[in-house]
């Protein structure tokens, strides 16, 4: 179980005109099951690219990506879709919820792709949205919208939760609430769920089990936090 996620020498090259540019330049690391991981790095470091590759949304130029023993870089489009449906929950900075569906329906749609989703109301209660179940996204605040997107992600009961700057658009108080929810998801399921958060906010690193620092497409450091702080201990 040591190497639940294993990347070896992953490269992602973009070609802009004649110039080739490595957004990821030989990235290797391993993450065991159940960790709460924070990926830190300045803007343009390749964090989103890395997360997209982990989530099966983007392909690699070279290198191997093994998730739970499967080499996903060899998957075709449909296999990737199934992989995303069954294993991955995504959370973005700008929520990406469907504007024409109500809160409840936004969570409900995972029923179309997952065999055994969690109960919608139960989840909405968990994220504190049960009162807003029949509202439309534009009737909610930013923090509430992000909670919808978390509810939708965890409704699938994913083994991996990938979050790209989840608190980036939120004030610090709301951000803390969101982080608590993410941590809760990590601890659920007997601590088997893995959560990976991309951020440029170094404070979040204090609560992580593992911190990976990225710069110019390369791993700068990969450290294990022996004593992660509780969220409330951190001064935000």
């Amino acid at each position, binding site marked *: 179980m040591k190497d639940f996620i294993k990347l070896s020498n992953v490269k992602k090259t973009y070609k802009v005109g004649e110039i080739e540019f490595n957004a990821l330049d030989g990235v290797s690391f391993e993450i065991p099951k159940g960790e709460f991981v924070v990926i830190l790095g300045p803007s343009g470091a390749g964090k989103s690219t890395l997360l*997209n590759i982990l*989530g099966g*949304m*983007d392909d690699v130029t070279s290198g191997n990506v093994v998730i739970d023993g499967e080499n996903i870089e060899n998957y075709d*489009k*449909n296999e990737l*879709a*199934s*992989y*995303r*449906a*069954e294993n*991955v929950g*995504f959370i*973005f*900075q*700008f929520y*990406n*919820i*469907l*504007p*024409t*569906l*109500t809160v409840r*329906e936004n969570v*409900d*749609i*995972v*029923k*179309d*792709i*997952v065999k055994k989703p969690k109960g919608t109301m139960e989840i909405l209660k968990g994220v504190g949205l049960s009162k807003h179940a*029949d*509202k*439309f*996204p*534009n*009737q909610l605040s930013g923090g509430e919208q992000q909670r919808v997107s978390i509810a*939708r992600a965890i409704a*699938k009961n994913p083994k991996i939760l990938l979050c790209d700057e989840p608190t980036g658009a939120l004030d610090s108080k709301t951000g803390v609430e969101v982080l608590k929810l993410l941590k809760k998801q990590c601890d659920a399921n007997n601590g088997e769920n893995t959560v990976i958060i991309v951020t440029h906010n170094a404070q979040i690193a204090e609560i992580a089990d593992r911190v990976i620092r990225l710069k110019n497409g390369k791993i700068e450091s990969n450290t294990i936090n022996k004593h992660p702080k509780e969220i409330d201990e951190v001064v935000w």
Partner: protein
Amino acid sequence: MLFRKMIRDIKSNVSQFITIFLMVLIGVMAYSGIESYMDGMKTTADTFYSENNLQDLNVMGANFTKEDLDKIKEIDHVKDAERKLSITALTDKDKTLLLNFIESNNISSFYIVDGEEFSYDLDGVWLDEFYAKENNIKVGDEILVKYEDMELHEKVRALINVPDHLYDVRDESELYPDRKEFGFAYVSSNEIPESFIKNKAIKEAGVSEDIFDMMMPNFNYKDHLIYNYVMVDVDKKSNKNLVKDKIEDEVESAKAVIDIKNSNSYVQYQGEIDEGKTYVGVFSGLFLFIALLSVITTMTRVVKKQRLQIGTLKALGFKDSRVLLHYMGYGFYISLFGAIFGLILGYFIIGKMFIGLEMSFFEIPNGKPYFGIQNYLVAGIVVLIATLISYFTCRKILKEKPAEALRNEMPSAKNTSFITTRGIFKNLSFSSKWNIRDMLRNKMRTIMGIAGVVGCCMLIVCSFGMLDTMNRFIKLQFSDLFNFDYKLVLKENISDDKLNELYDKYGNNTSLSLGIEIEKDGEKEANNIFVDDSNNYVRFIDKDDNFIKIDTDEGVYITHKLAELKDYKIGDKVRWHIYGDSKYYESKIIGFNKDPQNQNVTMTRNYLESLGIKYTPDSIYTNKDLSKVKDISGVESIQDINALADGMENMLSMMKTMLVLIISVAILLGVVIIYNLGILSYTEKNYQFATLKVLGFKDRQIERIFIKQNNWIAIISILLGCPLGYYLTDWLFKTAIEEHYDFGAYITIRTYIIGAVGTILVSYLVSRFLAHKIRNIDMVSSLKANE
């Protein structure tokens, strides 16, 4: 700088702008082309009629003397009058020529296509240009014409068009002029041979030639020339009726005075214009409408896509008016170019092409489309609408605070929340809910989509429906009503012996048509009576197409449509007199019948005779096989009903080419509308689909969601389009065609199926094509676009 931005924007939205450009172009082209064609039809004829002085009245009689002519000329308001002798002659090649002998040519004067002007002193013939062309006759050739004992060898002096002969058929049962077999010709009456006139005079006197010579030692045939027509030119159109009455009263030889507006040539041409105006008005209107639809939707979208940029411009400090002007430029320039090209192509391609087609059918010189002011008006309106749409769309965005505009558009909740969150909607599948909301949220787009697809379905149904109706008409007319194979049209003065001989051979199933004038509330109108003694060889139907018998001898039957037009009820009396006889009769209406072609009066032979009028049949009906018989003595012409039906079907095949054109335009517009709206909703949905993809939805699942909506729209459109197609067809037939027709739409199930399947197919194929693009959605960049 902003101008450069506009050029860049146009470049990066090139397909949308091309769509707008093309739609404006097609819409304006179809409209102005068709309008300039129809207006051209009218002005071409008006010019020809006035420049070549078409007569206002035709006076018909057995013979008009010089005194008669002078008398007519002296009537108030008469500008000029000319006599002519008009006879139907044969050529040595067995063709028929309507041969006219004239003294001068100031009324209905010739348009010389090739050759020399008419002169009384010149021999030779001025010949129908179309006939000459069909028969390969040139100026200088000699033709031989025969009539009774007269034989004329005449050199062709010129090929001509005459305003009185735009459209000539040998007899009115022919639906289509046959220029190879039938034409007109003019010869100076100086050319009438003395023997012809003298023989006629001798016959009339009933004596031998010797005795005649003794009786009339100074017989000058020129004083005895026969003229059966006087063409009258009236000073003002409004005085026509005055002159008509005067001639009827004062000139004894005048059997009938007929307004030129009732002459076959005039009626046919006018009919073509009237008919065209409605058909064409409907179709050009539809094209314009559908084109506008897609211009509006596309323009709205293009501007909406600029939301972020509008916000940015505002944030930079541009004044609202400046931004508005900039975006109005989009709509204005593109649609202006489209409209200008549309006007040009409309005139030169559509207008010229259709006029060209008509001018090969109607014999009229210098046919050209006429470019009326309304074309500029419509083009202007189209440009205005495109500009206004960009104006309003932009203004809506400008009204928001810059910060809001900089954010992506979020749907307002109030549009979507009502009903769709409760009741049965709760249990619908996610994709249905999503589609319903999406449609409700974009009501305008949905309505336009439906309107466009309804138009497409309607046009298909209407095109095939017109064919159905025509086929139905052929069956009704030529096998239900005409229950015979041949109609023998008898010579006018056939002897009783001859008649009995024909009865013996072909049966005595006969009829008589009487030209009458009906007077109602002081107004007189030409009509005719069909006197039936055909023993069911001619059948009749009621308004539901069930057979009825016309066998009551107490009065007359009239057609439904005539009753409707003239407000007659059963029991009313019809007041009428036969042309050439001023005695009026009053007949009780005892029943209605329906006739698809002819709105007239029908009576039995017994009833006619009970009025004291002699029944002298003019037609015999028979089922004997006459396919090899060319000529029967005493018979003017033999009409083969199957040949007539075939002629009709020929005309249908002409119609078919036109319908193919309409159908392809319908399909083209359907494709453009669905594609256009699809592309719009596609870019709009791109981001949502990317989100679904991230969640793990498979491409197929997302495609299905996408196609579902277009399928709904297609189904709704079919449900609306089929009945609307029926009403359009019915309306076209009922109100658009000439008054003397009476048939409504008759559309078969097959046509509805074709319309439905065609619409579904168009919608499905386009959606599939669009759905394919979903496979190419790049999740990463689509979602990034939102950041």
